[in-house]
């Protein structure tokens, strides 16, 4: 079943200049937050994007929504390259591009009531007023599992999980085709996380919305995603179908990430061998030469410090950027 591509990222880069100087600011370096990333997300599909903090996953998401303007590259949505559009030209498209943030405390205006929050997109796009507006808000509250009588409450009167539900309702208000979910669970407790995961899954089924699901939690990403991309230092290390990447992780970094996740079962853990990566993620201001992962890689060889591996298909849409697999091919 070939579904239509909703959003496509082509060779996207985002560099943040590091400047020095009092009046005439001189650029002294670049933070290469996102460095040549390409992928596509289809209708009703979830792409999981995993990586450690500072790997550029959030920057990438913000570039897709034009919250940051990319340094170079393209973001295609409904046939238009969003990077080329002005803020005014973007305005009508924004109805179908939404976001859910990590911190449900920070992402809701504390001076707004739940109704103001959920209804804000309706007001901005002048979609509903008066009675219709109130009904639509009540409907949205119901949809995310909150009671309509809560519309007059302020964010501080809700629990963390309920606030995240408000965030979801707001994102859904305009019936978008694509939602970027930026670590939507990491501020929530375990038992509440599952509620939100199920909610997101239900809503996807109902409305066919596509998600970019940014997370550092590999277990949740496996649960919710159709395809998974692993990012390291601004680049995609590996991208594939969910089942393939979890059963057959190729990139040593993916392998180490999976191994680092503790499994909630003492019996399993007693028998398990884990790969502990040495060192820490280098600064994206001066990334290592060759493969950016080579200083921490337990399978690195001489070439890794000189040759930059390309993200290449090793079969069935399983892409990996690692010299181990480039050499093994004819």
């Amino acid at each position: 079943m070939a579904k239509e591509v909703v959003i496509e990222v082509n060779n996207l880069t985002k560099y943040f200049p590091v400047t020095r100087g009092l009046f005439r600011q001189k650029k002294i370096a670049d933070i290469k937050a996102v460095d040549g990333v390409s992928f596509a997300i289809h209708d009703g599909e979830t792409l999981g994007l995993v990586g450690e903090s500072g790997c550029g996953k959030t920057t990438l998401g913000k570039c897709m929504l034009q919250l940051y303007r990319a340094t170079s590259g393209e973001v295609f949505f409904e046939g238009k390259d969003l990077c080329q559009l002005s803020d005014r030209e973007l305005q009508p498209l924004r109805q179908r591009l939404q976001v859910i943030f990590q911190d449900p405390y920070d992402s809701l205006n504390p001076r707004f009531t739940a109704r103001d929050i959920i209804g804000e997109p309706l007001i901005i796009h002048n979609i509903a007023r008066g009675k219709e507006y109130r009904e639509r808000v009540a409907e949205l509250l119901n949809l995310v599992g909150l009671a309509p009588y809560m519309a007059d409450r302020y964010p501080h009167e809700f629990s963390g999980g309920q606030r995240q539900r408000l965030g979801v309702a707001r994102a859904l208000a305009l019936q978008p085709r694509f939602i970027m979910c930026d670590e939507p669970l990491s501020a929530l407790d375990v038992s509440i996380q599952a509620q939100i995961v199920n909610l997101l899954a239900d809503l996807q089924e109902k409305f066919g919305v596509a998600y970019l699901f940014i997370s550092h939690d590999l277990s949740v990403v496996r649960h919710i995603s159709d395809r998974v991309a692993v990012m390291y230092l601004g680049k995609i290390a590996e991208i594939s179908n969910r089942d393939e990447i979890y059963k057959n992780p190729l990139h040593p970094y993916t392998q180490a990430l999976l191994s680092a996740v503790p499994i909630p079962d003492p019996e399993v853990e007693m028998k398990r061998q884990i790969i502990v990566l040495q060192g820490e993620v280098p600064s994206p201001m001066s990334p290592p030469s060759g493969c950016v992962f080579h200083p921490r890689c337990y399978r690195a060889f001489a070439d890794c410090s000189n040759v930059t591996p390309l993200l290449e298909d090793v079969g069935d849409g399983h892409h990996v950027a690692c010299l181990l697999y480039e050499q093994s091919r004819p």
Partner: protein
Amino acid sequence: MAIVANTTIGSERPHHTLWGDAWIRLRRNKLAMAGGIFIIVLALAAIFAPLITPYDFAHQDYSALLQNPSAKHWLGTDGLGRDVFARLLYGARTSLAVGIFTQLIVIGIGIPIGAIAGYAGGRVDNVLMRFVDVMYGFPDLLLVILLKAVLGGGIYQLFLAIGLVAWVNISRLVRGQILSIKSRDFISAAKVMGGTGRYITWRHLLPNSLGPIIVSITFNIPRAIFTEAALSYIGIGVRPPTPSWGAMIHDGYDVIFASWYQVFFPALAVALLMIAFTFLGDGLRDALDPKMRR
């Protein structure tokens, strides 16, 4: 489908808006409430001064010069035979008017400049803030005197002079507020929804900066009042016979050995009003600080 989440939390506790919550906290702060009540009482007394004292602030009674406090003249009379209590009451009008009108100017200039600098960022921010820094670098009183010299006498010119100097504080504060709120996720969310810059400023940024702005103004009012008193003390403030506490202190200073209370009462009035505003400001700051919420 999604289960209606158990919604016990919140329903058991009373429903408060953030402002309501702040009001509850303010009410518990006794010093702040005392300060607030003092200011209100003083304001009422100043407005209804003619009903409280039979004397006119300018009426000179040469038969009663430099009298001690008595049943007839509650706080005595000054060197020209004017009733000190009446002059204090009418002087409060001057002080409070200075406090209020200068702040209107401060709000009118300081908030827009701070908001523009904070929201626009980049070069606009740089230019505006360097200008503010230069203003900030001058000693306030000196600048007011200079402006007063340029603008000329009269009470409105005085408001203007003080206001034109005092706005820099608030513009710095507003800029800082806007910058910190701008980086919060609900602003990003509003941008993703398609909110324009003007919409975001009015709906999100300014309402969320209001708390610190109110606190800052509460602290700014006594400074303006003090500036006026200081200017009047050195004789370039309000012109006689309009009563001003600063001018009264000046006049009293000449006769301090004959009747010390000529200095004492107006000085006490200035001090009490300053303290009242400071207590109120402290209380407001604690009450409006969201971190104070458990």
